[in-house]
Structure formats: structure tokens, C-alpha cells
């Protein structure tokens, strides 16, 4: 069970969240070529190691957040709001492993 720190709600169980895929992919502009749009939807690195990804706190505050996770060890290095427009959370949005020590 991953323990993910929602910047607003604190450390919560993975089953409150839903996975939203690679957050580093940039959505092309409207005028982008079909190739760019194709890559945006279908082309992904299958990276072993640090991965920046979207999660939604679906069964919580419903915020989309950006999580930096190691795809091999599941270590989570950072979590942050996906949207710069949302009010800042009370948490630091940092660390996890579910443990503050």
C-alpha cells in the first residue's frame, strides 16, 4: 500500500487516489501537428527510476497532484499540487514513505 501525501489532506492510503499517468508530458498547442498529438496520447517512456506522475485524490479532496515516485522502489520523493491556481495546502507536500521521522 503506497502512502501518498496529499498537499491538502496529509498522508493517505493509495486507495483514496487514482493514477493519472505521466505528468511530464506536455499537451501540445491547438496548432500542433498530428504527430505531436499522437505522441502526447500514446508515446511514453517506461522509465525505471524517478517518475513524475499525476494522481487524483479521488476519494478525498479530489485535487490532482503531481507525485515524484521511484517506479522500482515506490519511494516517493515529492508531492505537489498539479494546479498553480489552487490555494496552497497546509502540508509541505514533501516526503512520504508514509513515515515522518
Amino acid at each position, binding site marked *: 500500500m503506497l502512502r501518498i501525501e496529499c498537499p491538502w489532506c496529509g498522508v493517505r492510503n493509495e486507495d483514496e487516489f487514482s493514477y493519472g499517468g505521466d505528468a511530464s508530458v506536455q499537451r501540445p498547442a491547438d496548432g500542433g501537428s498530428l504527430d505531436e498529438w499522437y505522441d502526447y496520447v500514446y508515446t511514453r517512456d517506461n522509465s525505471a527510476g524517478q517518475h513524475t506522475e499525476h494522481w487524483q485524490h479521488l476519494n478525498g479532496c479530489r485535487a490532482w497532484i503531481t507525485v515524484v515516485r521511484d517506479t522500482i*522502489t515506490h519511494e516517493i520523493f515529492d508531492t505537489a499540487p498539479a494546479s498553480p491556481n489552487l490555494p496552497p495546502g497546509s502540508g509541505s507536500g514533501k516526503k512520504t514513505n508514509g513515515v515522518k521521522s
Partner: protein
Amino acid sequence: MSQKFRCDEGGAIDRRKPLSFTFDGKTYQGYEGDTLASALLANGVHLLGRSFKYHRPRGIMCAGSEEPNAMVELRTGARKEPNTRATTIELFDGLVANSQNRWPSLRFDVMAVNNLFSPLLSAGFYYKTFMWPVSFWTNVYEHIIRRAAGLGTAATEADPDFYEQCHEHCDVLVVGAGPAGLMAAISAANYGARVIIADEHAQLGGSLINENFNVDGISGKDWAARQAQKLAGMNNVHILNRTTIFGYYDHNTIGAIEKVSDHVPQPAAGKPRQRMWTLYPKRVVIAAGATERPLIFGNNDKPGVMLASAVRTYINRWGVKPGSRAIVATNNSDAYRTAIDLHQAGVRVVAVVDSRMHPDAPLAAKLDALSIELIAGKTIGAAEGGQHLRYVQLVSTQGLTADPQRIDCDLVASSSGWNPNVHLHSQSGAKPIYDETIASFVPGQSRQAEVSIGAAKGSFELQDCLDQGRAAGAEAAKLSGFKGRLIKTASASDDDAYSIEALWIAPTPYNKSYKQFIDQQNDVKASDIDLAAREGYDSVELLKRYTTQGMATDQGKTSNVNALAILAAQRGEPIPEVGTTTFRPPYVPVAMGNFAGHTVGYQFMPVRRTAIHDWNEKQGAVFIEAGMWLRARYYPQSPEDTLYDCYVRETNATRSNVAMVDVSTLGKIDIQGPDVAEFLNRLYINNWLKLPIGRARYGIMLREDGVVFDDGTTTRLGENHYFMTTTTANAAPVLAHMEYYHQTAWPELDVVFCSVTEQWTGIAVAGPNSRKLLENVIDIDLSNEAFPFMAYGECKMNNISARLFRISFSGELAYEVNVAADYGEQAWLELLEAGREMGVSPYGTEALGTMRIEKGHVAGSELDGRTTALDLGLEGMANRSKHFIGKHNSQRPALIGDGRLQVVGIKSVEAGRNLRIGAHLVDDKVKLESVSQSQGHITAITFSPSLGCGIALGLLQDGASRHGEQIDAVSPLHDEKIRVEICHPIFIDPKGELVRA
């Protein structure tokens, strides 16, 4: 009844509380505190089952959850539980157990003939022996193998008990309550840390109860009891006894099973059978002990051959003598204790056989003092006997070829050394490393917040266990942020140092071939491992899969390291080069009921009911599930009324008069803010910038890959206020989709929105008389001029505030009334009353579906995640001069080329024959069986009361240009072929004049 093998005194059992139980129909007596295994041994019962593959007689080898052999069917009826270890079943009065995998009886088992055919059943036999002819596999071989192999049978009735799931946070979790665990828990708790200590047994103490130790001048058993009492008195300690930690998961999450009621005939009222804990400790101290390895020699699976430590445990914990003439065979110092304990219990120890040439002198002296013979440099080559051990043959471990030495005995206590229980450490993501000095794997570098101590770390001396517990508990508390003082040390009497010289497999007498079992539960022999390695399956992972070693319900607790060592020898490499497999949860089998917990039966899924549900129920409506919702499907008027009668009547009532349907289940999303129009413009393929206040519009959403996602109407309620509806099925996904784009792609848009699905009751009033009905109760002008098609207005319905939409799914003149859900039933009743004289009636989802097919409205079965707007005939709505989700990818060549499945209408041209949903559309030259040449399929069917014939919607290759064509609809499953005509998907009122009337 006599318990011939029960000691007169000693053990953690209560001789004043005799319990009676039956095994294979025969009644026996045991005592409170016994396990089924100890009680059977006390009665001299050793033969408990037949082995998996060869049906060899098997007995009890261990004294705990590592037991590979002694599995029984426990209890009867609905509570019957197959493959349960006799060594972990706490005895209760009236317990019933039966042996398994034998026929017709345990003593005479027909399938034991497999033992003679064993050359056919070697490693990989499934893949080799039963290959030809191919048809024989399903028809013959599989049935025979399934009958011959296998274990107990499961209960066929539903489990009458319930299971519970609990979560708990703590600072320090201590796994195991042996000497190291007890010290660690007290030490951490003394710092003020919140501690959970979990142990498999009812009583805390672990090896202190199994062994004949002294701590702080009192017996180990009494010392453990005192510590347990101390812990029970601390309010920052939670003791979880009868609890096995079965899994160490990511981010320090721990799974545990508490056997709440397994030790009683049935759970007390309100008590679960078992409880699954999810624990969230800051630090974990693993004091899970170690598991002894058996020596590998010929026929080492004979009943009467046991682990040396198990023999001690039966004597010390349960006061049971597992035999009367014992041989202790070992390659290490630890098993000497067994000889001494056996001797003290009055069992004749014929000899201690130590494979090492030079056993430890102090131990030799101890044996000498008791006049027990010590035979060094030899080991057991083979055991002999029928259904029980009769004698062993000793062979030299030094390469001497003298005749084997025969010794008569009925008990062998064997030890090939100890394996630290590194399971949880490995599950946490760490890699155990090989330690030459103890010839086993020990914990490596920690990856999570855990530390192993005591025997689990490879420290087998009692004083070390106590000291490490004291230090580790304090350290874990400190790391969790606590300050305090160390508790006093405890001092142990036992001072024997552990020493071992590995002996992985014994030479056989005269080098003859014997079955030397490694994994007794899956009947994997040393020769199977040799064979696998010879055939190229020589990596540890391949070996496991090829031979099934370690894949039984005991997960190879007693066999893994032995198998690995034999593989290493075969490869001619040191053990660390060969490596270990990864240990995976669960450590012990976990009943499925625990994972389900309370989410069974009606609690499996929440049920969503609309505000009109109770009324529907009173009317005798038949319901249908739509996701979690229950929707009224049709309204029978008499017991004889069929589904067909009802939806035809309800459809006719709507098309000819006026009828009402509950549409509250549609997803509803309230959207506000200055940028809503722009937001909608990007979400939907059509235009939203110029929607006036008080108007609704139908919209289509695509996914980013260009495929249609959802459809529905959105209404502009005010300047910056919109109200979206989605399909029932996609209500939640659409909301998440909108949140995703708003929060990640377009944070600059100033909009807010939330689901209001449950806040509003929706009632559609449809039919040519719907306006007339509403005029009785609505306070606004409903004339076509004042309130045209797609108009919206706020109004009062009698005294209820309502939102009124002029939208239609039926294709008739229709309105949708929304009221706050608390007024939903009242509004429904008032509408019924308003239309009573006109003969208004309710209709269900079946009539709703019929009318949508007649109107060619696409729904879930056409929005199947593959169709584009073009396929659905909706591309005309798209405004390609603006940006919208899926705009570019919907233009990929494959999505706009020829051969796409496009929505069509379908009519049967064979009178009286009904169409079938899912039928394939094929050319008439195609044979019934060849649906591989399918050109499409039927997605929805109904009998159209308006047209008087069966109609359907379907998806057909290039369907939009094939109207008028005839084709076959085939259903090979039903051996059915019907001639159909392809037509426009809108069957009635193609110009949509009725909705605008």
C-alpha cells in the same frame, strides 16, 4: 481415554481441562493448550495424511506454521476448512478433523500406487508425460491427475462467519513475542512509544515456552508470562496474540491476520472468525525467530521423522513424547538440546548422530553425563519402515564405505541448521545475504524502517536475543521521536554457543537410489532438483517453477535453503552465487474472507436509490441495476404482465398521451465562473460561446484519442452559471475528466464545479399531452413561443421551486422537471395528480430504451469506447475551427478511413422473427460459423410498438452509405440467421417535428 505419550507433568497445557475430539471418526482426548498435532501425538497418532503426488504416508514434522505435511480437513459442513495445519490448530472440545488426499482410507490408499510409478512423475512431468495425443489432455489425463493429486476439498456451503478489517497506527511494531520480541516491546514501550506486539500463538513467549530455558533465575516460561503481564498493564501497548504478520508492503504498511475465533467451535455472538489488520508503524522490529531445516536423507518423509526443535517443543510446550526410541541426527550444536530434553522426559535416546567429525566438547560431555551415545562423523543415510519409522541406516559423512549401521528407533529428531525468518525483511524490498558461519541467509541492508533481531537475524543464543531486543526496542522508540531510559538487562542461563558444519544431503547406503524429499508438501525430491538443473532449469527462479519446490501452501519454509544448496552443488558454485528467490506475501495462507471483510452480500457495493424509489417499489416496479443505481425498468399492472406487455404499453402511452420517467440517475454537474463557456467549448466538440441564458444544448465529448467519451445536455442557467448532465454510467468519470483538465492543462480558466447528481431529482414528462399536464402545475408560460424546444426556466410547481428544461430523449414533446431531491417524491406525486384525469402513467427504462432506439439516439452500447463522432453520425456537430479535446487525434487516418463501423438502423425482413442483440452482420454467402467475416454487430434491439416490428441499432462497416442493403444477422451460439435490412438509425419522425410541436 489414554494419552499414552503424555508426560506426567510439564508443558503449557491444563491437565484439569480435558477436551475430546475426533480424527477420521475416532474419538480422542487432549488438554486445553494442545494443538491438534500435539493431542494426536499424545495419543500415539502419527499418520495424518497422504502426500500430494506419490500418496506416501506422512506424519507430523514440525510444531508450527512451517509444517509441510500434517494437513487436515478441519470441521465439517459450511465451516469445513481444507489443508489446515494440525500443528497450528488450537484444540477445542468437539473438534472434528479428517485426513485428506486418501481413498478409500488413510491406511490403505489406492493411489499410493503412484509411488511405484514415480519415474513418470518427476520434475516437469506435466509437460513431458501427458503430451500425446493432444485430445487426451482434456478428456483423460487432466481428470486422472486432478483426482490423484491435490489436497483437501473445500466446503460447498456459504461461510456462515464474518470477517473484519481494522487499521491501526503505531510507533513501533514488534513482530514475534519470543525473548527478543518481548524485550523489544517492553523497551520501546518504556520510552513512551505506542507499541503493537504481534505473535502467532495464544500465549506470548515463543521459544521461551518451547525450550527448557531459565531467565533471571526463573523458568523461561514463567519469565515470559511475567513480561506478557507487564505489557498487558501498559496502556501504550496493544498485544495482538493469535496474530500472524503475513505481509510487509510498500511504505511500511503491514498486513496481519488475527485468528479471533479459530480456537472455539464457532465465533461468539458479534465476533468475527478472523480479523485482518492493516498496520502503519513508524518502525518495525522483526523478531520473527528462525525455522529449522530437516536433514535430507533417504525416506526422510517417514512418519516418525521430525525436526529436532519440534520434538523439544512437543516435550516442553505440550508435555508430549513424540516417540519412545529416539535418534537425534544433526550437523550443528543446537539439536543436542533435544537429546537432553528427550532424556529428561523419559524417552530412550539411542544415540546422537553428529555429521561433524569433531562435535563441541562441552556438548559431548553433557551427553556423556547422561550416558547418551554420541556417534560423530556419521549421519542417517536412509530411514526404513512401513507406515511408521522402524529403523535408520547410518552412513559415514567422511567418504568411508563401510556397511551402514542399522539402529532401531521410532523417532528421528533431525536438524540441518537454522534459517532466520527473513521473509518479512525480504518482502520489505531488502535482499537477504548468505552467512557462511550459520550456513544460511541473514537480513541484508534495510530498505524500509525495519530491523531484524534475535534468531531472525541469525543470533541463536538466548542472551543475544534478550540484549538485542532491549537495544532495538529503545532504538526504534528513539527513531520515532521518544526519549527515555533503557530497561534493565535480563540474563539467560543458556550459554551453549551455536556451531554448524553444513551437510546439505546425506550419502545413501551403498549409494543406492532413495527418495530424498526436499519439499514434502509438493513431493519434490533431491533428484528432481538434479534433473531440473541437468535440463537447464538451473536458475533459482526456473527451478522453483519447473519442480514446484517452495510453491505449496507452506511456501517452502523448511525446504527453500536446502533446495538452493543442492542446486548450488549441482552447478558447482557457492550458494551466494545461486541467490534466493524473493519471498512474497502472504507468510501463511490467508482465508479469502479476510480480504472481502464486510463487503459481502448486500454490503458488497452501496446501492443508490432515487427519491422516487419507495414509490416505485410500492407500485411493484421491476428494477434494473445501472451501476450502483436501482432504476425502475417497467411497471407490471398484473401478475401476468410480461416485460414485453409493459414496455409496449408504456411506450404507447408516451407516444399517444403523456407519461413520466424518473431520470434522476443522470450525472449532474453544476459549473460556475466567468470562463465556463470557454471551458465547455474545449470539453465539447460543438460551439458553446454563444449559448444564451435560458437555453440548453446537446453536446458530445471526446477523449484525447478522438473517440467519443460521453454525451448530454448543458444548460446556461445564468450569466456565469451552467448545469451539465452526463450519462448515468459516466457521471463520475466525466467529473474527474473535467477536474483533470481544469487542474493540469487549463488552470488559467476561472471555473468551479461540483457534482450535484444526488441534490436534484429529475422527472421527464413526455408525450403530446405533456404541455397540457404541466400547465396544470407550472407557473410559467409553456407556449411554444415563450418556451420553445431547448428552453430552460425557473418556475414553481405548485409550491415547489423547480427547474424546467424542454428537452426530449423520447422524441416526443417533452419536458424535464428538476426539483431538490428532498422534494423529489412530492413532485412526482403532484405531477401524477396533475395528469390523473388525462391518464398519465409512469414508464421505466425499458420503454425509455425502446423510444431511444426508435429515435436512433446513441447510448452506452454504441458509445463503446471505439466509436468516433463520425461513426455515430455526429461529426456535423463538430466545430473544427476551435480547439476541443480529441480534435486532432479524431482525424488520424484509421479513424476517418473506409471500413469504419458506423451506426445504422436495422429492420428484420422476416416477419415474426426477432432480432438478437450481439448478432453479427455478415454477407449472405458466409457460413453461419464464420463470424470472422463479421462486418459489424447489433448493439440494441427492441420491438417497436410504433412500427409494429422488431428494430435494432447496430454498427456496420461503412454503414452510413449502405442504407437499403440487405444482409444477414447471425448468432452462431443460437444457430440463428435472420435476413435484415439496413436503414437510417432514426426510425420515426426523422425531421424532429414532434419535439418542437
